[in-house]
């Protein structure tokens, strides 16, 4: 494990002499629940990956396009599929241990997975329930016994039987649900207070995810883990901080803040303004991309959005420059015309069917509206969250409102508190006609990006629905199935890209922008390079010595 000599990493970094010190993570949002069954993270997460090892993981060791690739973690390889990718087999590496020294067995991985089916431990991604045979009915180990479709023929082998072909299974196996959990240590919902570590750090204290302290796990070693360096002796996560305060603390870098990073806060104007004059500061800012799209979602079940011309008119009228400015400018957001993020791993295929230019094409929009029977404009409602700074908030909504106004569309804004907002738009019965939404990649592939949004079989009536267009097109469904079968990521990417370009014509969404991650780190932080999987420096590789 050499790590790359990335441009942002100081040349003198020596992985063998990097150990020691305390790394502070200054965050705005809390980590939330720390149960591997309940976490919803991409690639094992930023902090969780320090505690939970999974069958596979994202490539931690580099910062190029390779960092968007899956690599083995607990397993010896990224998985052996059968012919049609419905059966996946993994073997555990020898010598892997829990924090208490007991060896990790395939049964522990199976148990961890089974736990994630328990409704008592909700919150994890839905794929397993959808993919595994019997998954949709299984109620977890507490009430439902064992899940037959996960087999553990021996202590180091684990076999998954899927309902349908899923070429992306190795990606899914990076999720924390694939972390081993020793059955005799499971305390149900209380497990999150002290999950048993399989990674380089163990949880010493965890205050409801608000502040977490991790110390080195003595039963972990680099000998059995080629992905993580685990340089600091201790990692302290402090959350609940004001975002401008985080930036100021990182920029000032006094005391412990010199050895601090953030995993959730972009630089703001006060830092950006200083960058050009301050080379040293500029060096401490890293830029990355996470596969994410902010967009306007239409619900064609609501008039007038059933009319494609109205949707197109809005697409033409949109002023992406204003939207980008509203969320922090070109440094942190890139105008988007495609639904898929503009990275090869997703199968990015450029298109712009309703060219709005930089600041919208109100004339064209008016023309379309007139065709649709609204020569005098119309009044619509745009729903948004009331949380500022996360791209779905009032600032974006107001920018959209302003732009559409030029095209004769009067927009009434309807803000809802964040959680209520999600509840509202994730339920077909309450879903608004037009709202600000965002979708982030569960892993860098087109599948988890397009399927939840456009797969007709993923329309969920009771909530948690993301198919906001409520599109159930057999042809689209079939194309999704076909792409899912492909186990070669490169080929799969092409298929997804094609599908996205096709769907784009329907104007079910108006892509607004792809966020750019621009993060500051403390003066005493070394080896901070950016992963293309999650757009961020990797805590398991950072050194503070």
């Amino acid at each position, binding site marked *: 494990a050499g790590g790359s000599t990335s441009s942002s990493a100081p040349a003198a970094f020596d992985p063998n002499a990097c150990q020691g010190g305390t790394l502070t993570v200054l965050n705005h949002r809390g980590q939330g629940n720390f149960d591997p069954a309940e976490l919803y993270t991409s690639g094992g997460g930023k902090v969780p990956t320090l505690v939970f090892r999974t069958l596979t993981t994202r490539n931690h060791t580099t910062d190029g396009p390779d960092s968007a690739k899956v690599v083995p973690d607990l397993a010896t390889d990224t998985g052996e599929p059968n012919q049609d990718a419905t059966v996946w087999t993994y073997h555990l590496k020898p010598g892997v241990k829990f924090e208490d020294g007991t060896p990790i067995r395939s049964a522990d991985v199976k148990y961890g997975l089974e736990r994630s089916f328990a409704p*008592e431990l909700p919150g994890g991604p839905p794929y397993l329930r959808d993919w595994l045979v019997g998954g949709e009915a299984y109620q977890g180990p507490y009430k439902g016994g064992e899940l037959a479709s996960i087999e553990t023929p021996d202590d180091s082998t684990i076999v998954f039987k899927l309902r349908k072909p899923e070429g992306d299974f190795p990606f899914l196996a990076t999720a924390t649900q694939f972390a081993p959990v020793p059955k005799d240590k499971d305390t149900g919902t209380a497990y999150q207070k002290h999950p048993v570590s399989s990674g380089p750090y163990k949880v010493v204290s965890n205050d409801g995810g608000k502040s977490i302290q991790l110390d080195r796990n003595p039963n972990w070693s680099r000998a059995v883990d080629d992905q993580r360096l685990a340089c600091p002796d201790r990692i302290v996560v402090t959350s609940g901080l004001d975002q401008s305060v985080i930036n100021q603390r990182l920029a000032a870098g006094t005391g412990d803040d010199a050895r601090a990073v953030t995993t959730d806060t972009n630089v703001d104007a006060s830092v950006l303004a200083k960058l050009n004059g301050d080379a040293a500061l500029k060096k401490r800012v890293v830029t990355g991309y996470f596969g994410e799209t902010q967009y306007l979602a239409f619900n064609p079940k609501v008039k007038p959005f059933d009319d494609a011309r109205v949707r197109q008119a809005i697409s033409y009228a949109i002023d992406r420059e204003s939207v980008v400015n509203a969320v922090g400018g070109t440094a942190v957001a890139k105008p988007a015309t495609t639904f898929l993020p503009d990275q090869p791993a997703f199968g990015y295929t450029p298109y712009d069917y309703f060219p709005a230019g930089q600041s919208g094409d109100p004339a064209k929009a008016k023309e379309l509206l007139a065709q649709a029977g609204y020569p005098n404009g119309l009044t619509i409602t745009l729903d948004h969250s009331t949380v500022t700074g996360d791209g779905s908030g009032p600032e974006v909504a107001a920018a959209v409102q302003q732009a559409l106004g030029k095209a004769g569309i009067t927009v009434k804004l309807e803000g809802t508190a964040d959680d209520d907002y999600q509840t509202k738009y994730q339920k077909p019965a309450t879903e608004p006609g037009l709202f600000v939404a965002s979708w982030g990649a569960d892993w860098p592939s087109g599948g988890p990006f397009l399927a939840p949004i456009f797969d007709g079989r993923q329309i969920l009536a009771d*909530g948690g629905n993301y198919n906001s267009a409520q599109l159930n097109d057999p042809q689209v469904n079939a194309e999704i199935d076909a792409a899912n079968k492909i186990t070669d990521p490169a080929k799969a990417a092409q298929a997804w890209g094609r599908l996205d370009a096709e769907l784009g014509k329907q104007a079910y969404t108006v892509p607004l922008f792809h966020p750019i991650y621009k993060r500051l780190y403390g003066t005493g932080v070394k080896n901070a390079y950016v992963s293309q999987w999650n757009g961020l420096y990797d805590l398991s590789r950072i050194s503070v010595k």
Partner: protein
Amino acid sequence: MIRFLLRRTVSTAAVLLVMSAVVYLVFYAAPHDPAVLVCGKGCDGTRLAVVRHKLGTDLPVWEQYGNFLRGLVAGRTFDSGNDVTRCAAPCLGYSFQTDQPVLQMITQRIPVDLSLTLGAMVIWLLLGVGTGLLSALRRGRLVERALTTLTLAGMATPVFLVGLLVLMLFCASLQWMPFPTYTAFTDDPAQWAANLVLPWFSLALVISAAYARMTRSSLLETLAEDHIRTNRAYGLSERRIVLGHALRGALVPVLTMLAIDVGQILGGAMLTESVFGFDGLGRLLVTSVNQIDLPVVVGATLFAGFFVVIANAAADLLYALADPRVSLA
């Protein structure tokens, strides 16, 4: 005295009871379903039902409230998967969203607000009463004008702005002190104080103006009392009159105000806590309201209300102690 305490206890209980009922009602009336959020992506009907059951939101509102009340007196048990959690007698409920007993979440945060309140109180009393004293006696002098303007500016500026301003000024620009992070008093008293200085001052600045005004008008009122005239007629110096005789009477109404303020801040100074990133009751309240974590909302509201009610009772008690004419009835 005993009667007073008894009566106060009963009325406090009644107030808190109604308060919790109101919170339940308001949250019940709101169109949100925490289960959907907890359940996450791709949650189907049956799973949702289980989650609702776990959160206890599947019950009608009066049953939820009844369970809550029963828990208060008799304790409750919660099923947490393969474990059963017992929540002992004054059970304020259990937050399934954070998997913690509500009481514990609250008691953990009380030291923060206690520290915040006590220190800030000292400062705002000094600043407020001092300014009030000066403006009653030395009207128009430079110091008085400066202090009055300062306190008024404090009052006019929302605390989140004051807080951020001092942070940017003292921690970022001047770098006179590190950014505050809460340190428990028991861990390191010096650090505790150092970290709290800025929050104390921001909070105090916002509050002092009211005290300045109250002290001033109350002092003027007292100075016009007949017994002050007696003091003058007996040759006491002005200093002695003000400090020895007038101020004491003047501060009695300030006491009532103090009680309400202290009670309210003890129950959570959400804006100050937000700005300084302190985990107190106020933030707990805001977070839980946003997450619709009803047990926590109810618990935190009750505590906040409890502090105010108790502080009020304390004020009456102090009132009786401070003013020999008043007896508790």
